[in-house]
């Protein structure tokens, strides 16, 4: 069984302490709750040095440094660990704390470095997407909506209510997930591989369901063209596109962007294209505007 699984996902495999990776492979429990909390606070700077080459890598390393220092007293080990954590990293800034917890538990146990790398990589993608969907695009609009409806007549209380609701969830999650991740990592190191895959699969399901919905709610694009054919008027949006499928254009445009991204175009180019299309769409042609 083991051999067969190894054949399928050679990159993820959990093993005991690894003399070949560590000079000092003693695996005591050193990280305290206080350390965890401190690292949650540091993780607020996860994107301090955000950049398109490594994204959050340096911020991630910064966030977990106190833990690494405690765990790896040996300088060689610390250097190895730090180097591996400078590799590309990007996930949702709230959900990062669960990955931190798990990874710290694994570092403490002096797990195989490749395993740690695998967990870190396997979790960051789906948690990034699901976090964006749930926090940036669901939690945030709900909270903003509540706040805005209270501030509609110029009352600043709305802003306060917004900040309170949002941050109660925000910090509740951060501290909770950090602890949850650390415990999960400690207790269940050996079952981590399988769970990572399943959690990541489940997160992808939720994530993509939500993204599908978000495109329909957030991307704004409507044709304004009216085609005159003899006496008849065909309103492109209402008479044609909406009859085929509402929200066709938002969906189509997103898929176009997706296609262009896959063809290697950079987001910056896509933004430019979008601005150009937007402006062209509003040019007052004799027959009306396009968008």
């Amino acid at each position, binding site marked *: 069984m083991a051999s067969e699984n190894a054949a399928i996902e050679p990159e993820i495999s959990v093993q005991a302490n690894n003399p070949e990776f560590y000079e000092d492979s003693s695996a005591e429990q050193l990280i305290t709750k206080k350390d965890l909390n401190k690292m949650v606070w540091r993780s607020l700077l996860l994107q*301090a*040095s*955000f*950049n*398109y*080459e*490594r994204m959050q890598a*340096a911020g991630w390393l910064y966030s977990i440094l106190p833990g690494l*220092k405690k765990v790896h007293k040996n300088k060689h080990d610390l*250097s190895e660990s*730090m*180097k591996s954590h*400078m590799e590309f990293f*990007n996930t949702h800034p709230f959900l990062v704390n669960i990955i931190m917890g798990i990874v710290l538990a694994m570092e403490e146990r002096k797990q195989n470095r490749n395993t740690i790398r695998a967990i870190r990589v396997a979790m960051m*993608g789906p948690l*990034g997407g699901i976090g*964006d969907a749930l926090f*940036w*695009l*669901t939690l945030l609009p709900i909270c*903003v909506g509540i*706040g*805005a409806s209270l*501030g509609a007549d110029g009352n600043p209380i*709305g*802003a306060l209510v*917004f*900040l309170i609701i949002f*941050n109660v969830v*925000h910090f509740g999650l951060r501290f909770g997930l950090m602890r949850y991740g650390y415990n999960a990592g400690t207790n269940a190191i050996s079952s981590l591989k399988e769970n990572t895959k399943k959690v990541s699969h*489940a997160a*992808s*399901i*939720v994530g*993509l369901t*939500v*993204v*599908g*919905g*978000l*495109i329909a*709610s957030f991307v*704004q*694009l409507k044709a304004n063209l009216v085609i005159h054919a003899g006496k008849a008027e065909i309103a492109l949006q209402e008479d044609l596109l909406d009859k085929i499928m*509402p929200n066709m254009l*938002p969906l189509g*445009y*997103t898929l176009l*962007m*997706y296609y*262009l991204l896959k063809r290697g175009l950079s*987001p910056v180019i896509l933004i430019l294209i979008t*601005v150009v299309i*937007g*402006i*062209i*769409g*509003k*040019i*007052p042609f004799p027959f009306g505007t396009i968008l």
Partner: protein
Amino acid sequence: MDQEILLQALLIAIWAGIAGIDLFNGLLHIHRPIVTGVIVGLILGDLPTGVMTGAAIELVWAGMVPLAGAQPPNVVIGGIIGTAFAILTGQDPQVAIGVAVPFAVAVQACITLMFTAFSPVMHKADKYAEEANTKGIDRINYLGIATLFVFYFVVAFLPIYFGADAAKSVVESLPAWIIAGLGTAGGMMAAIGFAMLLKIMLKKQYIAYFIVGFILVTYLQMPIIAVALIGLAIAMYDFYKTIGGQGAAMRGARGRGI
């Protein structure tokens, strides 16, 4: 008078620095227009206009959040310039938004540049990691924060101190359809963020869920939280089904093997 506007511009610029950091770090979301409207309103002494302009700007920026590192038109500068402009020139919130959008797009471009420019610094960080120099790593991140602060400070200070009137006249001289076009582009911008998410997350076997989510909103007008719950239900179904299925497969195998 000049003294007062200098002080106000400085205060707003400090707020812009703080909010600019919060957009990517801290993430208390004090950078949202709904909050910024209050603060700028207080600084400029017209709280109600600030609050209402902030709320109006919120609507425009709904859904424009940084996804997978993709920058939408900058919400910090959009909110600050928009609110300040509305108060200082007494214009309607809608016009204020029109004025704010080009700034927001420009800053969006700058931030994208900055994130590109910061890439080489990572090689410095690699060296620190090699040397196990934890202080160095700290410094790099603090440097990032400082850069962000300075950048937003400057970007907010200049147009407000020098520019309210200039901005107004520039905007008024621009054809209305360009401003409208920028707004339309803003509405489309979220597509890029979603496309980046799709690039990361979409595999063939996930297309089904994507379709479901799209249908639920398009045809049933479900709010996103309901869509997320449906997604969760599917994920749970799948999770337990897979576990069960594997169990069956194992038992099948076990029952027969040898």
